[in-house]
């Protein structure tokens, strides 16, 4: 095979693969990138499509933490600087630095009734670390 034909083929195959990957990535990003909702954003935009995984963030409202399922599920209210709130339920162990009044970021889905079922909870990592998503809130408050 002549070097030029070979190069043509190689580039052709590589280009096809890259295009396929780009299409795949575009589709995957459109379907799977997690949008971030604070209570204010939720009130503004309304619920995301059902079953779509999103992130929710804000502060845990003091005194709002309750338990269900014999203690296996925790339920609490997330607030920000707006009058709106989001109720979050999470079946699992609270992250080490989870506290009422502290910042929290949850990943999961909304029920049609607007309750957020979290799959994962992230709290402040240590005293110096704040989930990045909460920084704009901090500046606003």
């Amino acid at each position: 095979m002549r070097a030029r034909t070979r190069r043509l083929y190689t580039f052709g195959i590589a280009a096809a693969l890259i295009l396929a990957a780009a299409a795949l990535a575009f589709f995957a990003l459109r379907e799977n990138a997690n949008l971030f909702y604070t209570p204010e954003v939720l009130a503004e935009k309304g619920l995301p499509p059902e079953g779509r995984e999103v992130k929710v963030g804000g502060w845990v409202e003091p005194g709002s933490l309750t338990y269900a399922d014999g203690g296996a599920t925790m339920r609490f209210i997330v607030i920000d600087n707006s009058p709106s709130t989001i109720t979050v339920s999470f079946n699992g162990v609270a992250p080490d630095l989870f506290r009422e009044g502290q910042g929290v970021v949850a990943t999961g889905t909304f029920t049609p009734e607007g309750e957020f079922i979290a799959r994962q909870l992230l709290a402040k990592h240590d005293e110096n670390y704040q989930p990045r998503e909460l920084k704009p809130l901090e500046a606003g408050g």
Partner: protein
Amino acid sequence: MIELGHFAAFLALGLALAQTVLGLKGERRLAGLTAIAGFGVMSLAFLILVFAFMRSDFSVALVANNSHTLKPMVYKIAGAWGNHEGSMALWCLVTIGFGAIAAATMRTGRETFEARALGVQGMLAVGSLAYLLFASSPFLRLDPAPFQGAGLNPLLQDPALALHPPMLYLGYVGYSFVFALAAAGLMEGRIDRVWAKEARIWSLAAFAPLTLGIALGSYWAYYELGWGGWWFWDPVENASLMPWLIGAALLHSVIVTEKRESFAAWTALLAVLSFLFSILGAFLVRSGVLTSVHAFAVDPERGTLLLLGLLGYGGFALGLFALRAPSLLGGKPWTLLSREGALMANNVVLIVATLTVLLGTLFPLIAEAFGRTISVGEPYFNLTFVPILALALIILPVVQAWAWGKADLKAWTRWAIGGAALTAVFMLLGVGPLNIPLGAAFGLALGFWLVFGAVWEMKRRAMNFGRVFKMPARVWAMTLAHAGLGLFVLGAVLETSGRYEATLALPVGGTGTVAGWEITLNDVRAIEGPNWYADKAELTARKGGTTAQLLPMKRFYPAAAMPTTETAIHKTGAGDLYVALGEQREIDGEARWVFRVYYNPMVDVLYLGVVLIGLGGFLAMWPARRSLKPAAGEASL
């Protein structure tokens, strides 16, 4: 004392400067001697720093900020690199060390080339030393010295994490010498057999520890974060995966350059990229531009400096590449269906896979520039990275037997039928008795396909060499690595599709059931360690005839005012029963403890696979025996 270290580091900077000038001028011997002297001086500086940590010398600011007298000795030592400044000192030490070892061992017979490689390595050392001394010095005093230190982030006080940074840095920084070789080769305009022989060894010297370093980091996250998973597609993890993927591509393409002198420009480009991606990784981890569960020692200002370094090195090497690549000579002729073509396919797939990881990692940043806060998680990577990489794994067993130049395709139909049959069997098993998703069934078929392919190829090569033990080390290495890849795929698929998790809230004396295991909470006691106190739960898990004791802990480190989770893992042989202790909850006036319980099948197979890949990398560095008759066929991989 620490001033001596500070002085030694400055001396190392001076020697690195001298090494750069001498090397680029072509003085092989003098550049080599300065490199070795620089290594001695930098080792001294680093040891003095470690010594300050061992003695808990709190008049050194870094020690005061990151250590504590009550910490066990091993974590005092590991604490030296468990922070930004110390880890940069380690980075410098490894950069200089690779230069020194290269200076002592390189025997290519090309004086100017070797000198220039040492010169470029000196330049990289100057960059990292300047960054260390002027932007993040670990040698500064604190006056007055406090009586007690602030302690090391308790999450990092862990055996796997004590070893993880040095391993990872041997990998990241190992690519610095690959970069230097590429730059020197491009300056000479010669990227040929001799160059590739040297570059291959050094790319292995980086790849093998990088593999083990990533495995250690992942294993740490598995048992220390208490989330039951082993890979979270976290930006910091991706930052280490990208150089690994480029490094894997490089390992395969450099073989073509070594054996056939083809792919010269491409190999040189990969060699440059492998190091640039390592710096990109350091930038992503250090700058805090991305949210990460692993992030520590984050500082945006330093991130800017790293980015400048990345641009500087990148501009230098890529400019050199643009200037010289067109004049590089091609190798022996080949067709698409040949080992060259197969390795080209391997490279294209690995690069495209890297690009999908890069896109997924940087996309939140791009979106943020447009005012949208989003994150990209596992589903994205499962849809892009996984199927793309699977392409390479599907063809691997077939094409690794292909000959250079032009493959003999006689066996083609047999492979196709075998592969189709294997897939069909697993699909049926998946739908029927195993009851797993089709993707997972296909993944299992792929894992067996890879392991079988590796063994089959070894058998074929062994027949070429007459006896199994006459095979060169690199054939063994290839077998190990490819079989390891297969085991990894098997473990990953079984773990991901068979994972089971649940939350239990138990009072003392209470019992719950997870995945067939009956779990009883016997007691929760308060205990004390050297620099922590903890709640320790005693659980008994029963299933069939087996009984296991599980002792998960929740520790609190007063020095850092921080809790950590110490999971308890019971290995059943087929998987891990994994328990993390949560907080105490007040339910109807009764105190209950919360547990997250996971059953993770075949995690060990997954890690065994990765370790085999790493060991394969080390083994492939073993020099070939010269006594082999050339007629016995070239040791071609």
